[in-house]
């Protein structure tokens, strides 16, 4: 048992499941957006803004945004804990890893708040 406090859900099973669930949501969102762009007759700013004026689309977009943040956190946390390790770099790895994780967390919060503002601001 390896103890971690910065992983998304503490449990590896939890993280694994969330990464898969969010991946499915993101796939559905991408397919929908691409489909909308290619299959809408007279696709224009008008049809695009009408789509995003609907509440379900805003909620769907917010779910996709949160999925991106969760998916990215779990994935990038793995990358950070693979490559920035105390075994390879000594004590300074702790500082560097925490710094990178703090930046990733800040970006995640920023994107979420900014995304909500965009979705409900237009």
């Amino acid at each position: 048992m390896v103890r971690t406090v910065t992983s998304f859900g503490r449990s590896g099973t939890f993280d694994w499941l969330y990464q898969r669930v969010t991946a499915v949501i993101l796939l559905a969102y991408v397919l929908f957006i691409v489909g909308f762009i290619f299959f809408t007759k007279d696709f224009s700013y008008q049809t695009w803004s009408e789509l995003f004026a609907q509440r379900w689309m805003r909620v769907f977009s917010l779910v996709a945004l949160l999925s991106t943040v969760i998916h990215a956190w779990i994935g990038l946390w793995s990358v950070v804990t693979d490559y920035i390790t105390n075994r390879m770099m000594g004590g300074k790895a702790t500082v560097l890893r925490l710094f990178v994780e703090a930046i990733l967390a800040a970006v995640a919060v920023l994107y979420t708040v900014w995304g909500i503002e965009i979705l409900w601001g237009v």
Partner: protein
Amino acid sequence: MLKVSIYRYNPETDKAPYMQDYQLDTQGKDLMVLDVLELLKAQDPTLSFRRSCREGVCGSDGMNISGRNGLACTTPLSEAAPKGKLILRPLPGLPVIRDLVVDMEQFYEQYKKIEPYLQNDTPAPAIERLQSPEDREKLDGLYECILCACCSTACPSFWWNPDKFIGPAGLLQAYRFLADSRDLATDERLSKLDDPFSVFRCHGIQNCVNVCPKGLNPTRAIGHIRNMLLTRAV
């Protein structure tokens, strides 16, 4: 004439490891890589490597043979050096003690973590704990592991986190006991594996399956462990 290039490092005399070239007349025979090493050791007694059974059972002579982990005793030259050039390095990722001899401590530490022994607190029967042929069959493809470390040292996740990720060899054995009908510690075993490192650093790239000299499939075993963890958690 066979050309052989071998990783040499003696920490007492060498500042850094280097590759030493040897020539060997194989007289046209398709020798095993271990035979080549034995013949070269006769030429140069300082050459160090581990070996014991010389028939793929003990798992002592795992090494990186022309870029691929394998057992020197069961890898023929026709496979390892089809163009007449053999390159031998120690198993990647583990600290080198000397030449082709590596320090297996981290590998065994991970093996120890999975408690590789049967756990059953019920009173022992007079003769033995019986198992149905179907239950016994579940251990096929798991019990054959010889702990040569070829798989774990071919795994990038094990290279990065040998202190946290159990590695394919340890996980194959973890599943060997999870799948055993006589073992009663399944839940405790799973609880100890349910963190983001022990099992879940496996990203399924199957280097382990590719190199296993016994033809075992650690990736499949890891998949079974993941399914057991998932079944328990959702």
